[in-house]
């Protein structure tokens, strides 16, 4: 097993030019081990193409992508090092899920027993002998994860793994990925389910139109956009609004009777209320959510290219 530092994913000035479309445009970012990294972007932003280049399935026009310092195609025993889930529907319709896994085991020189172990891990054992065409989308996603875990890899790369999962399945996936990252593995997950990503990811890489828009820990990215607002509830809304306006803060009354205050810290608002003798029932600093930040960051870049 290699150390955590050597399992980083490094994407370095990566570009892919299709006939007229620059799907990925001089993209650079790093993914650290021991954390879950969300890879976010609007449809057609080049997420899947980037992941496919990272995995040696698509040849980059220029640039480099490495896992633990090596290109995927140069890894000695790739699936013992990197597990990937790329598309949920990628198994032969007439083959059972168990045989799909066994086929990979045979090609990789792993014992057939790994197939049963990973089926158990993803909770698919009862459906193992059923043919793939009878699987629900959620079962297909689970089979994809089972395939990725066959080689017990240090690095996991998942493209839209939450698609088609029910709430219970999403919770299960979140717990699994967090547990795997906590063990020191590198986990890179692409998604456009922003609410889910806000809960799951430690770091985010946001791309749009093939270019990097922002990268960093979720909190930093959220904070950097200055979207922090404070929700205040008071029976004396008019007095408080006057007091806060004097401070230069903006006050927006909400339909539920609360006030959303921008441009002032919670402490300053509390102090202003105290000096103005205004009674407060609620004073909560609200972090801007990933969806708002995402839409702000990718504004105008999300169109179909």
């Amino acid at each position, binding site marked *: 097993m290699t150390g955590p530092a050597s399992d980083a994913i490094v994407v370095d000035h990566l570009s892919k030019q299709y006939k007229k479309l620059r799907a990925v445009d001089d993209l650079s970012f790093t993914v650290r081990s021991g954390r879950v990294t969300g890879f976010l972007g609007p449809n057609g932003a080049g997420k899947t193409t980037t992941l*496919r280049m990272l995995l040696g*399935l698509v040849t980059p026009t220029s640039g480099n992508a490495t896992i633990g310092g090596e290109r995927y195609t140069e890894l000695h025993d790739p699936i013992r090092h990197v597990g990937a889930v790329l598309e949920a529907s990628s*198994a032969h319709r007439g*083959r059972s899920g168990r*045989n799909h896994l066994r086929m990979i085991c*045979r*090609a990789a020189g792993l014992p057939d027993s790994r197939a049963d172990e990973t089926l158990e891990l993803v909770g698919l054992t009862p459906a193992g002998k059923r043919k793939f065409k009878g699987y629900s989308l959620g079962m297909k996603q689970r089979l994809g994860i089972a395939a990725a875990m066959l080689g017990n890899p240090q690095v996991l790369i998942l493209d839209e793994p939450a698609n088609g999962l029910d709430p219970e399945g999403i919770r299960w996936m979140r717990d699994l990925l967090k547990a795997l990252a906590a063990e020191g593995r590198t986990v890179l997950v692409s998604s456009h389910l922003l609410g889910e990503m806000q809960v799951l990811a430690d770091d985010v890489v946001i791309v749009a139109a093939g270019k990097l828009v922002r990268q960093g820990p979720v909190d930093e990215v959220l904070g950097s956009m200055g979207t922090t607002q404070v929700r205040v509830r008071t029976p004396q809304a008019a007095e408080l609004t006057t007091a806060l306006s004097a401070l230069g803060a903006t006050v927006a009354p909400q339909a539920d009777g609360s006030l959303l205050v921008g441009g002032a810290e919670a402490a300053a608002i509390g102090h202003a209320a105290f000096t103005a003798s205004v009674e407060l029932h609620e004073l909560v600093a609200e972090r801007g959510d990933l969806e708002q930040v995402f839409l702000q960051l990718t504004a105008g870049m999300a169109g179909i290219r």
Partner: protein
Amino acid sequence: MNLINAELFKLRTTAIWWIMGIVLLPLYAASVLANWAQFASTSPDQVSDPDQAEQVRAALEPINVATTLYTSGQYFGILIVLLLSAIIVTSEFFHLTATATFLVTPKRESVILAKFGAAVIVGVLVWLLTTLLNLIVVPLIMNNLDLSSQLGEGAVWRAIGLNLLAFVLWAVLGVGLGVLIKNQLAATLILGIVYVVGTSAIGLIFFLLTQYVAQWFENLQVLIPTTASQLMISGTELPGNPPRWVGAVVLIGYAVVAGFFGTWLTKRRDIS
């Protein structure tokens, strides 16, 4: 070896192998019966053209009857092997399993080599099946034609051996063509139709070229793959045909070209 094992496992865990088996058996039986009927009813006296009569007389020599009968099923057996070999490649794209396959083995030439290996094994198995059936059935037919079994003749065993070579070469050809025609439906249809109809169609073109353009076109007929493989396994030299080794060279040529070009193309292609 792991990879060839995996390729055979892929084939074994879907329905395609027994479907092809069910298709093959009646076709094989029909070929044996047709050969039998032909030898039972033909005689050189019915043919007026002296050249043709000479050919028919040669074909009716016991040894040539034997080589034809002991390689019965070649035509359809090879068709099945050709289709299965192509499907070994195209099904990866049809069922989107190419991604999983190339993730396990990013060195794509190894995957294609394994597919060649698996296809050759399939070819050998189908050859083994038809040959075993022939060894059981044909002595009875020879008896019915009032001929000895001819199994002591070297030419018979050489024909059976060359028949094996034909199966192997067509298997390689099938994989190469499967890479070129990535679409499964297109590949099976094109290969099936070209194999069955193409021989006569191209044969007709060659006939017209020979008749109206130049006599030497006749010698190029061996370039038709099916003609080449039939020539290769013919028992002894038949009058008016190129020597057998020419057929072998033509087939090996096609197999090598398809193999190398297919591998080269697979290495370059983006998998998405």
